[in-house]
């Protein structure tokens, strides 16, 4: 593997002893590998009992009866929570208070909305007793026919897609675009429902103390979880203390508190004891979100020379029968290619599943594999190399808005990745390359893109009498390395060495860090930390420059600079004073300041902000057996400032492997009659294993972006999927000449296609 350090050379950012940009290993790494990192389900407060959810095996209908008596009779069972027997809620779990309040099943009725929905909770002294108690409930149902699949119900135009995006976007004259096209692609693709399958299942350990609530539960957004739980139980958010120091992955499924987690809280209330509730793997296929299935029709027009005239991208997506989340799949076509006419549109069908939600690169992932495949088809139709085709249609400004990009080093990404991969000389026609063993070899590429988002987050900085610093922010480490990267930013923000600071995080008692999603956490919290550091140093400077006894007296705040635990005069570097000296003389125990990170609306209205990348894939295909093997993946990404190259590498690699998974492996298989998922386990829900992951080369390309946020950070958490999925699919086409438009690519398509 290659790690290209991306230390920016911009002197404004280059500090003596700078921690940003260093490939630090994880600050919590030793804890994790020695098993000392305590995940939510590792907690065991005194008196704790176990709650197990009984789930519905029908997808639609009503629960007619539950054998509560049988469950209660089972030794060890303490109580059975049902719609008829549960603690009161202060708020309707079906109320839609805000766009992030998704409906959840908290036993409010006997209605079943999807398979695997909670229909009761059994609380017992042991996990085994609770599990058996749940089995003994032997529910009887009034079954209604499940609505399954993309044609289950009548399609309608959703009000919005994603979070507040218009369902249809038109730019330019679509008809004229089609009229001008001499080459046209009209292809329909399908992507399956996918489930997050974080290694750590959703878990909660809930302890009530009067009207205070203590929770160990994995969360990508503790403050929002506090708000939701507070509303449901009618207590102030401040009464809820959430600990979430480590997540075993979230991928979006832990962004919002889920129904099962709240059921754990209800169970604790019902029995008046601490309760642990952990979802079984199979139970994660329903109540905690998923990626919607899609069917996408994409039409691309170009002239003979390969200049795009139109992109028309329509997506049909599913949502649940009872709530609205619309995977913004077609929106992937907004930003990448300079077409004079672009239309994206969505239609939705309601099905009997849990509500789909954000799953790593929601919309971007489903849309990108289709867009990149179709662009490959368009290039092929024109007889043009796919890279050349993309360069021909390179967007110098954001096509749908006309805004300039805040930064966009995509050309360099194409160039670097293509060179590293050895793309030059690729035959245009498919099925031209064989390796020494006779396997078909194919090369494909895709463009990666993901918006550079900012949410809102806060941090608090303290400098203590001994000159040490503390930075606090209730951030979320899902495994992406927040502990490490934010510690690095904190040290620089306080102008201290790493050893001289403490970074506190992972609990809701700290300043609200916003949600860890949208690949925006490092950017958002990083900005908050940066601003908090600047503010606390300003206070320190105030103390020093206004004190006649200080060598910095009279310099004014702007006249001093912080470096390695000291303030220096800008006009005379030799005149300086340590933090400890300043505080000691002032007789102040510590100085403290807060900072906020948030989007700058002015910059946002002026610029389009996106990270970009280019991914190249090589696959080999057995010419008779159809077995596909990815053999090389090269990606180059321009994602603004790189805080920690090691963490960034692992995010990008993980994303690229996810892309490979999207193209070749991942799919939830649903029985079309019952609406039950048939492969709700890690044995049959296939994601790549190590043996499927090829040698990977991940390059980060320098990008200095003064507009996105103070530190110039763009996210890296999701972009790796985009581009990669399409690259792999295109490589399969190049190897075989078979264009599979139904993902994941299945062996039968290749076997039968190869003939």
């Amino acid at each position, binding site marked *: 593997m290659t790690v290209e350090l991306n230390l920016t050379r911009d002197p404004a950012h280059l500090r003596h002893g700078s921690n940003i940009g260093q490939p630090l290993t994880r600050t919590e790494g030793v804890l994790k590998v020695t098993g000392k990192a305590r995940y939510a389900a590792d907690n065991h407060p005194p008196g704790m009992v176990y709650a197990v959810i009984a789930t519905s095996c029908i997808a639609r209908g009503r629960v007619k009866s539950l054998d509560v008596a049988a469950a209660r009779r089972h030794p060890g069972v303490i109580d059975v929570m049902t719609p008829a027997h549960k603690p009161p809620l202060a708020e309707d779990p079906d109320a839609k208070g805000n766009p992030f309040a998704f409906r959840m099943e908290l036993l409010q009725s006997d209605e079943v909305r999807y398979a695997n929905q909670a229909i009761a909770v059994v609380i017992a002294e042991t996990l085994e007793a609770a599990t058996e108690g749940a*089995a003994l409930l032997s529910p009887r149902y009034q079954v209604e026919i499940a609505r399954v699949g993309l044609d289950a119900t009548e399609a309608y135009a959703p009000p919005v897609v994603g979070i507040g995006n218009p369902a249809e976007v038109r730019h330019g004259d679509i008809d004229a675009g089609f009229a001008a096209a001499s080459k046209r692609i009209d292809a329909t693709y399908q992507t399956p429902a996918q489930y997050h399958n974080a290694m750590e299942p959703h878990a909660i350990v809930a302890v009530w103390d009067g009207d205070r609530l203590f929770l160990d539960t994995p969360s990508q957004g503790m403050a929002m979880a506090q708000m939701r739980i507070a509303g449901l139980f009618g207590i102030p958010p401040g009464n809820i203390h959430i600990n979430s120091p480590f997540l075993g992955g979230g991928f979006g499924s832990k962004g919002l508190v889920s129904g099962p987690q709240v059921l754990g809280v209800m169970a604790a209330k019902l029995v008046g004891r601490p309760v642990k509730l952990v979802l*079984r793997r199979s139970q994660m296929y329903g109540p905690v979100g998923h990626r919607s299935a899609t069917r996408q029709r994409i039409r691309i027009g170009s002239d003979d020379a390969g200049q795009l005239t139109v992109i028309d991208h329509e997506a049909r997506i599913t949502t649940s029968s009872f709530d609205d989340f619309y995977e913004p799949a077609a929106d992937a076509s907004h930003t990448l290619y300079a077409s004079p006419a672009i239309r994206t549109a969505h239609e939705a069908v309601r099905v009997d599943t849990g509500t789909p939600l954000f799953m790593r690169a929601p919309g971007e992932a489903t849309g990108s594999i289709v867009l990149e495949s179709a662009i490959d088809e368009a290039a092929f139709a024109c007889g043009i190399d796919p890279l050349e085709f993309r360069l021909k249609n390179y967007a110098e400004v954001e096509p749908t808005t006309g805004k300039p990009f805040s930064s966009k080093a995509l050309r360099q990404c194409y160039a670097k990745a293509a060179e590293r991969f050895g793309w030059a000389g690729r035959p245009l026609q498919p099925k031209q390359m064989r390796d020494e063993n006779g396997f078909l070899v194919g090369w494909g590429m895709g463009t990666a893109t993901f918006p550079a988002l900012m949410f809102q987050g806060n941090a608090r900085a303290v400098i203590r009498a001994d000159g040490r610093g503390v930075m606090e922010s209730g951030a979320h480490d899902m495994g992406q390395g927040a502990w490490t990267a934010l510690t690095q930013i904190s040290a620089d923000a306080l102008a201290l060495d790493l050893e001289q600071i403490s970074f506190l995080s992972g609990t809701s008692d700290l300043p609200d860090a916003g949600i860890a999603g949208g690949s925006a956490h490092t950017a958002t919290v990083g900005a908050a930390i940066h601003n908090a550091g600047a503010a606390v140093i300003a206070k320190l400077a105030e103390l020093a420059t206004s004190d006649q006894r200080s060598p910095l007296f009279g310099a004014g705040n702007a006249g001093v600079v912080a470096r390695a635990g000291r303030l220096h005069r800008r006009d005379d570097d030799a005149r300086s004073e340590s933090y400890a000296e300043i505080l000691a003389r002032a007789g102040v125990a510590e100085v403290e300041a807060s900072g906020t990170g948030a989007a700058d609306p002015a910059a946002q209205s002026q610029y389009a902000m996106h990270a970009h990348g280019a991914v190249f894939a090589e696959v080999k295909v057995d010419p*008779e057996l159809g077995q596909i*093997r990815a053999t090389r993946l090269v990606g180059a990404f321009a994602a603004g400032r790189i805080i920690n190259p090691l963490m960034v590498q692992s995010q990008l690699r993980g994303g690229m492997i996810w892309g490979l998974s999207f193209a070749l492996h991942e799919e939830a298989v649903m029985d079309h009659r019952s609406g039950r998922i048939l492969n709700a386990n890690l044995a049959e829900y296939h994601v790549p*294993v190590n*043996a499927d992951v090829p040698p990977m080369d991940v390059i980060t390309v320098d990008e200095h972006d003064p507009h996105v946020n103070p530190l110039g950070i763009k996210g890296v958490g999701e972009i790796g999927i985009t581009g990669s999925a399409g690259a792999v699919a295109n490589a399969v086409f190049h190897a075989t000449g078979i264009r599979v438009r139904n993902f994941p690519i299945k*062996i039968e398509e290749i076997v039968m296609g190869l003939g």
Partner: protein
Amino acid sequence: MMNFDYVRPANVADAITAASEKGASYLASGTNLLDLMKGGVSRPSRLVDVTRLPGLDRIEHLADGSLRIGALVRNADLAHDAEFARNYPAVAEALLSGASAQLRNAATVGGNLMQRTRCAYFYDAGSACNRRWPGAGCDALKGENRLHAVLGWSEGCIATHPSDFCVPLVAFDAIVEIEGKGGRRELPLEALHRLPGDAPEHETALERGDLIVALRLPANAKNFAGHARYIKVRERTSYAFAVVSAAAALRIEDGRIHEARLALGGVAAKPWRSREAEQVLAGAAPDTTVYREAARAALAEAKPSGDNAFKIELAQRIVVRALTLAAAGTPDRIAALPGSPFSSVAGA
């Protein structure tokens, strides 16, 4: 999980007595059984843990040249036994192509033979399944069945047997040694698993209380060591069951196939030996034409049980591939990706 008795008998006789009661089940390493219990598919009232029974964990070379493998030998230990791998390379390759390293370390020989189908409807307690509940119907028949059987299935059940290990074993005429209430008996492995017919719930020829104590590979199985392969197509490179697999073994003398063995996996409710194909091959010169003919013979009776017609085509191609590779000679070492068509790729 339901409450159950757990007994750990000291010897085989006690084990048989303990397991002869209704609702009792042998427990080996539990990699299959415990999953079934957690899913509510199996609900034994008593588990008879056989893992500590003495004397069943040995690999013995018998005087007649055959090999006797105790039922408790771990899958990994057997595959990594150097002499075993040398003499029965296709069996070792099949073992190593199965499951994951962790599972192979735990799984026993007896448990592997007796593992249940992976039919998703069998695992889904909410579905109708004739194996779980005789007469209930088969939800796979009109359901998601692209990976189901193409040979030997009935309207009552279209499930496949998932074992890789059993495929070369059945090709080599392996024999199962069974202890039961009536004493000791032997059965060709080929007769252990049953085709569903109209009683899919009768998955094997074992009676209540029967314990597999050993597996025997006859002396002549070694004769194929120079030309024996196992090829497995699957949906990811490891930790996935076969879509279709084939074990091929040849005895080639003077440029002719003297004797051939061929079995398929993933196509039927049992490891599928094809004597028809073997007959086509016997006496022929090893070339693609005859392999194709053998493949056609092996799948002559095949018919799709659902969305799986491709498996018939794929199975024939795998037969051709396995024979081609077997004829080319067993590699010195088992490849890094055992069973994979890509196992010959450099660096794979």
